[in-house]
């Protein structure tokens, strides 16, 4: 009986492959079959490659190259190395821990003169200042006065500023003498090097990055969960309504997509601020008193509410497309077999929507982790995410290396989470539509 033979495609493949591997198969003119096949297919493959080429080139140019550039910038630290040749030489000759002697200070003064000549004092000072705050002016002042200094240089420099003998300064200069550094990564996890070069945590009142990484993770998970809770029923409704009605509802769901992100965010501000529509309504209804308006904006609540709204369609769409394919007869069958409607949902319907949940959750989570405009506008102080600090270092402090290190850590963190996700859910289980 035909239906008792398992339809196993692998069996067929194995047989064919075995025939080819024998190497005995040839076509009529004597060419081995394998080579003839490759020749016949090469044209098609070339055509396929040419079709992919524009996108490939585009992605390499606009995505892969910038990412590697960013990774490079996070470890690249050429300013001290390129502009202080004498100091670099001295550090190379004298091992770590050597007390800076007159030769060291001579090299230093020579380099300060070079800095003045090349107008690079700020560049080097900024580099040292990243790790030892307050030392930037040391270099700019030193460079300005270097030309007039007389030996012995050590004494002369210390007279300008006693900080020049700070062992921590010399440790920082030594590490900056290398053209590559991992110190930005240390700073990105709230660590620094002490005067002996040992890695220690930074002063408690300056620890921020780990906390923000943690908050970004927690808030993103919360937002993902919120979108799931809100999107699931609406996606179910969309999937079960007749097509004409569901199309109309779908337009409503997609409406936020067609509105500018800034418009949406500012409309949340109008709604949620303490003199906003929601608070006014609650005061008018007597739920809260005028003096105790609820602060729903410029804090975590604002960030979560606005981002949940903005990311909602990214959860609804994959859920909808998966639910649409689930035949209603499954739930009927479960009910018929004796399951209550809750059991039928839990055991039969819900498991079949998991691929949609998985896809939606991954999409929303990854978007949320990198979000920046919305938390910047509505997040206030405690609703900021790590991307806001990356932006701060890009545009505020202009410390691009630090921004690159933070971004690289964020990227690495997402890849690790993605890997975990793959282990737990299975990426091949995702269904986007």
């Amino acid at each position, binding site marked *: 009986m*035909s*239906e008792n033979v398992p339809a196993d495609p692998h069996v067929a493949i194995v047989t064919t492959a075995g025939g080819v591997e024998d190497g005995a198969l040839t076509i009529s003119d004597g060419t081995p079959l394998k080579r003839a096949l490759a020749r016949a297919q090469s044209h098609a493959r070339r055509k396929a490659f040419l079709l992919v080429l524009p996108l490939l080139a585009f992605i390499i140019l606009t995505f892969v190259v910038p990412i590697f550039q960013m990774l490079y910038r996070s470890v690249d630290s050429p300013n001290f190395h390129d502009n202080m040749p004498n100091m670099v030489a001295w550090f190379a000759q004298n091992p770590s821990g050597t007390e800076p002697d007159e030769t060291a200070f001579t090299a230093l003064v020579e380099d300060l003169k070079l800095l003045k000549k090349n107008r690079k004092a700020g560049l080097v000072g900024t580099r040292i200042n990243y790790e030892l705050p307050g030392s930037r002016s040391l270099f700019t002042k030193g460079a300005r006065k270097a030309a007039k200094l007389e030996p012995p240089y050590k004494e002369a420099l210390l007279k300008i500023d006693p900080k020049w003998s700070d062992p921590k300064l010399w440790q920082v200069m030594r590490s900056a003498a290398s053209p590559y550094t991992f110190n930005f990564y240390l700073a990105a996890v709230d660590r620094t090097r002490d005067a002996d070069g040992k890695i220690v945590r930074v002063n408690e009142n300056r620890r921020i990055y780990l906390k923000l990484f943690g908050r970004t993770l927690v808030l993103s998970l919360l937002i993902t969960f919120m979108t799931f809770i809100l999107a699931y029923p609406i996606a179910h409704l969309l999937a079960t309504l007749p097509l004409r009605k569901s199309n109309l509802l779908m337009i409503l769901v997609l409406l936020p997509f067609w509105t500018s992100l800034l418009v949406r965010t500012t409309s949340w501000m109008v709604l949620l601020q303490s003199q906003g529509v929601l608070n006014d309504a609650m005061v008018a209804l007597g739920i809260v008193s005028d003096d105790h308006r609820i602060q729903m904006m410029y804090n975590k609540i604002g960030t979560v509410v606005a981002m949940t709204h903005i990311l909602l369609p990214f959860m609804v769409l994959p859920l909808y497309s998966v639910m649409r394919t689930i035949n209603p007869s499954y739930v009927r*069958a479960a*009910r*018929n077999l*004796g399951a*209550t*409607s809750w059991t039928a949902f839990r055991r*039969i319907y819900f498991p*079949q929507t998991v691929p949609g949940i998985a896809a939606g959750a991954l999409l929303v989570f990854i978007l949320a982790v990198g979000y920046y405009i919305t938390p910047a506008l509505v997040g206030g102080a405690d609703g900021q995410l790590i991307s806001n600090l990356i932006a701060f270092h890009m545009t505020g402090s202009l410390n691009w290396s630090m921004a690159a290190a933070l971004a690289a850590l964020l990227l690495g963190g997402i890849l690790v989470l993605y890997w975990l996700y793959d282990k737990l859910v299975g990426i091949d289980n995702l269904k986007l539509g």
Partner: protein
Amino acid sequence: MASDVSDNAFVEFDRVQKSYDGEVLVVKDLNLQIGKGEFVTMLGPSGSGKTTCLMMLAGFETATNGDIRLAGRPINNIPPHKRGIGMVFQNYALFPHMTVGENLSFPLEVRGLDKTAREEKVKRALEMVQMGEFINRRPAQLSGGQQQRIALARALVFEPELVLMDEPLGALDKQLREHMQFEIKHLHERLGITVVYVTHDQSEALTMSDRVAVFDDGRIQQLAPPADLYERPENSFVAQFIGENNKLDGVVEGFEGDEVIVRLADGETCRANPVKCGDVGSETLISIRPERVWIEGKTTPNTTEAQVLELIYLGDHVRCRLQVHGNDEFIVKVPNSAGHKHLVVGETAKVSWDAQDARALDPL
């Protein structure tokens, strides 16, 4: 069998009506009694209301009016999961995320059976459909016929007394379908369960059922055992829908004994069996099965001249298309056996039929 059902019906539709939109009745005044252990098929074209009736019985649709009773108990307000009715769905509805074993175990789990009892029953049910070795497969890894068997096993595993089947063989190819018809029939006989079966395939209905309810336009047109349905259709819809059928339009001219004399369209008369025709002067439609017509040979009061229009050779018999009483589509099946005349296209032959086999029915 039909007579004793009404007294102790197992399943009973009592004046059931159903409307989805409040404007159109999909099911109009349905009365149906099904006895315990009976195999009843609801047969009809799509949109005739047969599936709606099945869904009301399963509990997925509620009757707009009337009662549905199971073993004497009204079930209108009992949710589907408490009805204890097994069902085989058109697309099988095997849970894709569960293995075959888990699928079968599901109804037992929700009934709170312990693990050993479940395993025992699942094993037995799978063996019943000869699918024992597939217990760990997923539905997607099975062929259509295999899925069909699993769906059957799942509907039976919790030992329901009533099993509903909604076009369960519709997706299978012809050969497999015929084979499964026998298997289902045998299971029904072996287990003594009551089966309500929905199909639009008349041969399926005739081969499997104890009784067939022919649905059209929201009503049961005729409820009868298969042989009665074919031999003695009670109205022209059933005569048309079941099997092949020759139609002759006419007007009732008079009655003579248990026969009716009908004036046909071409002016001649024909004697027929007045099954469902009106009084003198009303229109009627005479239905004659092709195999009840003789060519040459016997002579009856209904003997008439016919012109041979077309012959189709079908091995065991020859299909002849004739012109009889002005009807160009009159079909006669001539057995391909010794002693039968070989017809030639264009010749004129004598055709005859018994007045009892010409059933005067309601006009279409």
